[in-house]
């Protein structure tokens, strides 16, 4: 086959949004490398997803089907793709950077003596791949120098799903040889944590708090601002890890995705895991003591300053304006 191969991920029987973005990234790479592009869908029943993917500009969509691929396991997915690569020899393999992809692609790459370039935000001529370093403070440019396929996963939101070009692809089936004994992990069905009583997804105004608050004893300052605004209180992951706020108030890839009219981020540096959760916000305000914090890049308005001084001042100003 050679060329570019995009590995599609399903979510509830359909192609996930992140996978459409991976197709858009793959098309960019295919244009730069002047190579054809194909896609694979893995699972026990892949007809529906394959049909969805075949509506894009791809040479071929391959259904990698096996009953043992019904539930994701790192062993099963690695074996299936390893066999497929041996038969088809892609030059580049593009994945969406999801928890599932993070769980098995480093293993798959290792098996072929390669290393994944993960969480890529841009692809330039070379090809050279950009990914973030130091919690988003720096960008790194990576070049593959290995002899095997180059493995790339793309960050959520870095490529636009609606830029994936339409077309009509041929669909084929590939049946890998997998035995039950080769799969060493037994995953359960997924389940929710504690009952969700806070629906941040529906809130119109949210005040988010991060490490910059320094101490749980300072949280009332933030609560007062939220109350003045009629806003829900949310947090970045560390605040929930420390037990300062309930896990259900966590905003980001492992917590809730929000889409309020107004989001105010207090003392949140802006790691990508948080930023993906706030993308749908209409207006973002960032208040942080570090002028170089990546959160300012995602903000419409910013104030550089000490939370202990700026937050009470803002609470007063909000009250005065009402």
């Amino acid at each position, binding site marked *: 086959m050679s060329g570019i191969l995009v590995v599609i991920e399903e979510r509830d029987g359909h192609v996930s949004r992140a996978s459409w973005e991976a197709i858009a990234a793959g098309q960019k790479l295919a244009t730069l490398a002047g190579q054809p592009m194909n896609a694979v869908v893995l699972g026990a029943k892949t007809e529906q997803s394959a049909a969805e993917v075949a509506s894009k500009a791809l040479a071929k969509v391959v259904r990698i089907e096996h009953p043992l691929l019904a539930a994701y396991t790192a062993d099963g997915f690695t074996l299936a793709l390893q066999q497929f690569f041996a038969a088809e020899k892609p030059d580049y393999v593009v994945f969406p950077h999801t*928890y599932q992809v993070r*769980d098995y692609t480093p293993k798959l790459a290792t098996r072929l003596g390669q290393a994944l370039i993960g969480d890529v935000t841009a692809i330039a001529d070379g090809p050279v791949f950009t990914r973030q370093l130091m919690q988003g403070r720096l960008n790194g*440019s*990576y070049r593959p120098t290995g002899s095997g396929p180059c493995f790339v996963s793309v960050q959520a939101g870095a490529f636009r799903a609606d830029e994936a070009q339409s077309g009509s692809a041929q669909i084929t089936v590939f049946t890998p040889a997998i035995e039950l004994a080769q799969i060493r992990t037994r995953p359960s069905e997924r389940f929710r944590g504690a009952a969700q009583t806070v629906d941040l997804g529906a809130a119109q105004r949210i005040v988010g708090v991060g490490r910059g608050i320094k101490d749980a004893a300072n949280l009332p300052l933030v609560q007062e601002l939220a109350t003045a605004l009629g806003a829900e209180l949310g947090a970045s992951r560390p605040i929930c890890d420390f037990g300062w706020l309930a896990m259900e108030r966590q905003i980001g890839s492992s917590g809730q995705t929000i889409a309020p*009219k107004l989001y105010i981020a207090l003392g949140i540096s802006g790691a990508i895991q948080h930023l993906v959760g706030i993308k749908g916000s209409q*207006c973002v*305000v960032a208040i942080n003591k570090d002028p170089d914090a990546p959160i300012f890049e995602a903000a419409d308005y910013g104030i550089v300053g000490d939370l202990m001084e700026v937050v009470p001042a803002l609470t007063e100003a909000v009250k005065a304006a009402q």
Partner: protein
Amino acid sequence: MKIIVAIKQVPERDAQIRIDAAGKWIEESGLQYALNESDAYALEEALQLKEKHGGEVVVLTAGPERVGPTIREALAKGADRAIHIDCADLNKLDALGVARLLAAAVKPENPDLVLTGLQSDDLGQGQTGVILAELLSLPHSTLILHVDKTDAGLTVKRELEEGWFQTIELPAPAVLTIQSGGNKLRYATLMGIKRAKTKEVRVVTAAELAVDAAPVVVLERVALPQKQKSTQMLTGSPKEAAAALVEKLKFEARVL
């Protein structure tokens, strides 16, 4: 239970990061370093498993001489001994090369369990544990919040996206990457700090491990991210900035 915890020393979270003269890495002189956060949770999980089931906790790290204090910190918290892979140019290796070094040091130890943080706070690749598992031919699972030892092996709680979780059963020995927040981190006690001074730290050089760590992926250049969005910065005293912000939110963004 013999548990190996692979840890990494990373620049402190609030450290001022500068790019080096060659534009290929960060300027390391004058930087403050700390134990990588999710590795601290991996160490905590290991110490709690040892308290429950007995055994030994061995910390393993690769890095230059400056990682010494981070190793002592882990020993002070309760790890029994340490293996330090002395490697001055860690940043020139790729994820596979680093994992090959770690795997070579883990193999002769024959551990019952290998734990590491889910990703480093500096490079953030989140691959070391998974590659390590493949190199050691062990099963693995990632983003783990809780580990239970069972008769058959291990039962672990794995975090999925958007507030979902999953339980995974797997045989031991295994490699697990630990997500932050599963436990409350302990502090080193004065007694622990004192004891750490006499605990064994075995230093092996990368050359002694005799692995092929030649990179298949090269970090060519580091740069500051280009500003893409025009953020309006509001300046002045806290009171002035706050008043200006409310004005903007009310009349420009119209969200108040």
